[in-house]
């Protein structure tokens, strides 16, 4: 029992604290540096610890420390209870969702791994299968993610309302409208995927993506459901409330939108929750569409030649697992970067454009995708 608790704790620390939080904070840095790069600037580079400047990375530390020691202010006219709880409502769900995301495959402890020569799926012959790379091996993982992510809207809209500020109220209303609208598309695009993979366990879905189509194309989500991938990514970015979908905080119209009255750590929680949401989007899209931890043609015993199916390059089991986790991280970080590049390239949507895009373009497209997928599956069977 103790062992399970310890392992779970270690996984929480490893995935949430080490990966998610670090990537999220790195994103704040990357955001500033990336924008600088795009805009012919240098970007932050002055903060230093002794001689170490680390290309501006130290600025993150300064930001964090400063925010901790900033006056924490609540307006007298605000609804005190809700005002205080809102940042946590925004931040916690974003973190909870990571519980079911498989960063790597299951690990076969103390046993033999046998690889099926046809499907190349590994099975643990003796010994125990352990989920070292996801916090919870929930078999309804996808449903859980949706349940938790949809809670995120409460933090922002409650924060917007409780501040008792008209700008934040408009922001809060926009948040609710935006997040609810895009959740529909997100859900519908995934239905197609569910039909293909016949599972809502995220790790099973990733395993399925390791199979090969026509013998050599990896059966990643992006290959078999390209439209769904684009739609899901767009909708998910819209869910993060980051530019160009940042109408709830629309700096030029609403000053800071729904968190206009928040200062210090509460403000930091709101902004950080957006970055965390970005990481979540990156990890979800990686899991669902980019093959998760899969590396093409790499199976638990090494690289296989896709045409003959023979083992081309044998690798030790541990190394394979580490490579797979690394692949997952690399894909996720690439998607984080993609979101940043989007942010610095596109202008902001207007409220009605956003709604039009959500309801009139993306929703019908995702329905069409669903129908076509269903027909194709029916036809193939």
């Amino acid at each position, binding site marked *: 029992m103790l062992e399970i608790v310890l392992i779970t704790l270690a996984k929480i620390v490893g995935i949430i604290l080490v990966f998610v939080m670090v990537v999220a904070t790195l994103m704040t840095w990357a955001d500033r540096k990336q924008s600088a790069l795009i805009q012919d600037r240098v970007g932050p580079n002055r903060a230093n610890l002794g001689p170490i400047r680390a290309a501006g990375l130290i600025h993150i530390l300064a930001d964090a420390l400063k925010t901790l020691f900033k006056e924490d202010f609540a307006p007298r006219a605000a609804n005190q209870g809700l005002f205080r709880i809102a940042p946590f409502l925004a931040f916690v769900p974003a973190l909870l969702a990571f519980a079911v995301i498989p960063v790597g495959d299951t690990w076969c402890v103390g046993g033999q791994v046998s690889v099926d020569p046809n499907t190349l799926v590994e099975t643990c012959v003796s010994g125990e299968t352990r989920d070292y790379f996801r916090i919870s091996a929930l078999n309804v993982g996808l449903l859980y993610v949706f349940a938790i992510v949809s809670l995120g809207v409460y933090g922002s809209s409650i924060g917007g309302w409780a501040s008792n500020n008209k700008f934040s109220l408009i922001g809060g209303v926009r948040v609710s409208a935006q997040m609810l609208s895009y959740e529909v598309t997100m859900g519908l695009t995934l239905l197609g995927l569910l039909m293909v993979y016949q599972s809502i366990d995220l790790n099973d879905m990733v395993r399925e993506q390791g199979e090969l189509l026509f013998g050599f194309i990896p059966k990643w989500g992006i290959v078999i459901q390209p439209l769904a991938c684009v739609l899901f990514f767009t909708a998910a970015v819209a869910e993060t409330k980051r530019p160009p979908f940042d109408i709830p905080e629309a700096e*030029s119209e609403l000053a800071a939108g729904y968190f206009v009255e928040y200062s210090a750590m509460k403000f930091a929680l709101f902004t950080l929750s957006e970055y965390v949401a970005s990481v979540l989007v990156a990890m979800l899209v990686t899991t669902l569409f980019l093959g998760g931890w899969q590396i093409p043609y790499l199976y638990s015993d090494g690289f296989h030649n896709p045409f003959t199916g023979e083992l081309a390059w044998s690798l030790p089991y541990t190394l394979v697992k580490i490579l797979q986790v690394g692949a997952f991280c690399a894909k996720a970080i690439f998607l984080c970067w993609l979101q940043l590049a989007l942010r610095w390239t596109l202008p902001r949507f207007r409220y009605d454009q956003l709604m039009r895009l959500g309801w009139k373009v993306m929703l019908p497209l995702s329905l069409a995708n669903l129908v076509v997928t269903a027909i194709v599956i029916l036809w193939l069977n």
Partner: protein
Amino acid sequence: MSEIFIETVRDDGTPDDLGSVPMSLQMGPSHPAMHGTIKMRLRLDGEIVQKADVEVGYLHRGFEKSCENSTWTQVFPYTDRLNYVSPLCNNVGYAMAVEKLIGIDVPERCKYVRMIMSETSRVGDHLTCVGASLMELGAFTAFLYAIEAREEIWRLTEEVTGARLTHTYVRVGGLKDDLPPDFEAKYRKVEKKIRSLVDDILLLVDRNRIFLDRMKDTGVMTRERAIDWGFTGPCARASGVAYDVRKSHPYLLYDRTDFDVPVGTTGDNYDRYLVRMEELKQSLRIIDQCFKQMKPGPVNVDDPRIVMPDRDEVYGSIEGTIQHFKIIMEGIQVPPGEVYSYTEGGNGELGFYLVSVGEGKPYKCRVRPPCWNFMQAVHEMLEGYQIADIVPTFGSVNMIGGECDR
């Protein structure tokens, strides 16, 4: 305009059957989109602006009162700070007004230099305007490209005038100085840079659906209303009024240059954007022709009562000293009378109405600010649109606080 929203509030502001009431919201004066100097009281029905009440005056700096207490030459720094995005246009406009009042004509080279400098200033103005409205739309990168191009212009003008922004380069009867000898070569480099940066901006926004959707059919001002409100400049031209002082009443030597006046059709934000982008290119064209036609020669009128003597003369001869002293202490003596002189500023017809009673100071120095007309009409361009449309509309009319509030 929106197709999603249904009017839920009656026009007089009382709640309808759903019991909703309009929200009143005060935007500004310290608001990112209000340039720090405008206050808007909005009546909102959801996202729709039902009524916008614009209040100005937060940057009223007493331009006229200050001018009345300065000599004719001392007014130049004040004019710089009217439309501080294109200060040289203001300089030229004011100098021409005083020259008209005195009744003198400046040498040809001076005219060319004034044209070159006003047009570079106009390029900077339009770049800033387009860039700032893009930034307010969220396209921060395009804004930085525009500012980078503007920076090049500033560096160039700094070499000529000695200042980056507030140049005070033009004088009554001439200029502070001639252009530096290698100016044209430097200008060519800058021009190349500007063109490439403008191409970069176009690449980012020109075919961008978000940008187009946000700019098209928002903030519409029809031709008739625009004329009635007294619009001039790019905003009027975007509404279809083909009026450009440089073309309709050529001053300086604009009649010797060949350039087009872009005219929009619908008067929406996108037209204003297009007109500015096209004018920017036309300005570069004018500068090109000026360089071709320009010949060496004096830049100041030969009149010791108006033009300050050279340094050497001031320190070396008694006439020079007296002349310098008289111009500095008493100011240029301008005959009594009144004139209205108009030029094409960055934002439209920039008129100076000067009244002299024969002293070294203006009795009245009135500027006709083109922005003033835009601001009194801007509520018409906002009502019925959405909150988010305030941003591009307000950006594209290019309200400059210094000019509007004076």
